[in-house]
């Protein structure tokens, strides 16, 4: 799939939801579907006006980037961490996380496998059609990745009567995602992104560190290497033989706090051998903060791989300087040819509905700066 411009500007997915949408979500308003449509139109308009080349629907219909699957799949129930506390083995790790987030356990929801997983209705096809209908731009559709889903939704005591372990769950997760991807490819989606945020956590947090709740289901004995192998295999099984959209994966270091000190730190070097074996076109990576190290690590990526280069920080109030972004991109072009580079923020602006990391005005400013930097780079 060709986008037709150099340095295409895109987003990682989510857009901050308007307060009226959050209120309607909380109260399960009868007009929720209409309000989600309106909020999606706003998210599209902001992106178009900012000069984004590949737009998303802002994930306005989702509570977060992966919990929404509970509405659309059989065998999955959305549970709060308060409900899950009775089941998770490492309760102390959960307490550390809740304490760092300063949130009650009842405010965080996680989809949990409680029966045979299959599609009740498409995960994102209806959202894709609405987006397509309302923009002339190329579109990006985001889907939770198979590794994240098979690990975060499997909870001992709730899931094991259907699936003895997360590995056996993987087969049905792959089947669901493949079905969705095939439909998106047939419908002409320009870009599909699988969100696998915890891959860097496996590598950077090590065996004993505090894990996010998405990783909490991992057995203490799991090795990071074994888990990364598993992620490669699952992703490859999902995309095997499917062509059309730019297929990408997003890996991040946490986007749940504006306090940079509590987010993961470290370069991607250790991850590159695994990324290179993923049969994907693009890797959507974070490079906007010093926590990521230098882009030199990307010299080791497969020469045909595109990079979704994270060059604005969605969590800061200050809008970046386009000249600084240009400088950062030129730094990358020392290792990667310009035709392989896409520009995007590090992560979403509203990964978790109730805890967006930016307001719409700031997010709009940051996307505008990305577009301005792209224009400068194209003119050069």
């Amino acid at each position, binding site marked *: 799939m060709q986008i037709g411009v150099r340095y295409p500007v895109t987003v990682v997915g989510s857009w901050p939801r308007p307060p009226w949408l959050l209120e309607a979500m909380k109260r399960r308003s009868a007009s929720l579907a209409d309000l989600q449509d309106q909020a999606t139109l706003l998210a599209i308009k902001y992106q178009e006006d900012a000069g984004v080349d590949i737009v998303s629907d802002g994930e306005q219909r989702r509570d977060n980037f992966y919990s929404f699957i509970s509405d659309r799949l059989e065998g999955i129930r959305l549970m709060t961490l*308060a409900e899950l506390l009775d089941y998770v083995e*490492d309760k*102390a*790790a959960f307490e550390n996380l*809740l*304490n760092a987030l*300063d*949130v*009650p*356990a*009842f*405010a965080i929801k996680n989809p949990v496998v409680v029966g045979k997983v299959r599609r009740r209705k498409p995960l994102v096809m209806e959202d894709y059609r609405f987006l397509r209908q309302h923009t002339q731009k190329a579109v990006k559709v985001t889907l939770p990745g198979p590794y994240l889903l098979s690990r975060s939704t499997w909870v001992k005591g709730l899931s094991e009567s259907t699936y003895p372990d997360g590995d056996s769950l993987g087969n049905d997760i792959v089947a669901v995602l493949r079905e969705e991807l095939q439909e998106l490819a047939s419908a002409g989606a320009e870009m599909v992104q699988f969100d696998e945020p915890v891959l860097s956590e496996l590598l950077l947090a090590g065996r004993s560190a505090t894990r996010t709740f998405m990783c909490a289901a991992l057995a203490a004995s799991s090795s990071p290497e074994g888990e990364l192998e598993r992620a490669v295999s699952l992703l490859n099984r999902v995309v095997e033989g499917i062509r059309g959209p730019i297929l990408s994966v997003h890996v991040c270091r946490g986007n749940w706090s504006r306090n940079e000190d509590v987010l993961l730190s470290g370069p991607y070097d250790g991850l590159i051998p695994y990324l290179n074996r993923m049969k994907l076109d693009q890797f959507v990576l974070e490079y906007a903060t010093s926590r990521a190290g230098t882009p030199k690590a990307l010299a080791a990526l497969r020469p045909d791989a595109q990079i979704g280069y994270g060059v604005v920080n969605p969590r800061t109030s200050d809008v970046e300087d386009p000249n600084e972004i240009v400088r950062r991109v030129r730094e990358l072009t020392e290792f990667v040819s310009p035709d392989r580079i896409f520009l995007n923020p590090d992560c979403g602006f509203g990964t978790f509905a109730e805890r967006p990391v930016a307001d719409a005005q700031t997010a709009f400013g940051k996307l505008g700066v990305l577009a301005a930097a792209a224009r400068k780079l194209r003119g050069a």
Partner: protein
Amino acid sequence: MAEHDPAPDATCDGGDLDCGSGLLLIIRNAMDPLPSGGVLEVRSREISVKEDLPAWCRLVGHDMFASRPGESGSTSYFIRKKSADAVLKQDLDQARNYVWRARVRGRGGMGAEVFVRNHSFAAGQPVSFDTADQAISAIEYLIGSLGACLAVGFQWRASQRGIKVHNLEVALQARAQDILVYLGLRDAGNPGLADVRATVYVDADADLEVLEDLLAETVRRSPVTQTLQHAVSFTAELRKA
């Protein structure tokens, strides 16, 4: 039973409290100033009250002559007073002088078992830093007890005011003055708690000011909090979630 307008002379609200947990004392105290034949409206959201209250009225001779559904899931019961409650003062004094008891059996090593009424629970060493430790430490019981006193107290007082609480969570943090004294690594100093912080997350159908007022009242009337407040710095902060 709502065959005529009950027109009460006084009202009391038990919220979620059941008859075995002090509700009868509240009712008797509210009825005490009324003359014989006076009517007390008792509001309650506790389902067991529907059976237990008429039974108690029959026992003591009051006439529970009507009931009707009220607001926020509450039911109003109307009781006509028979005669003065000769033993109320005595029973209030008995409640005031109640002595709580626990029996704790050392189980060898770093373990103990606690027996209270018809319950029992295991306790580990007073202080533990290890998340893999098998038993709950005494300090954790202490702050857990404080949190439970606040959580249940808040829910009950909310129910009395007809406020629906969808979710409630109390997060507690405590620091010791010098825990090395307990470990025998220091001789001088105080191993006791220095401060305890409670964050009370509430998702309820009420304004922030109302909930903060409710928390202040809960703290003021909480036996565990008021005990600890004499000894340590205690703060409670409400977050509307």
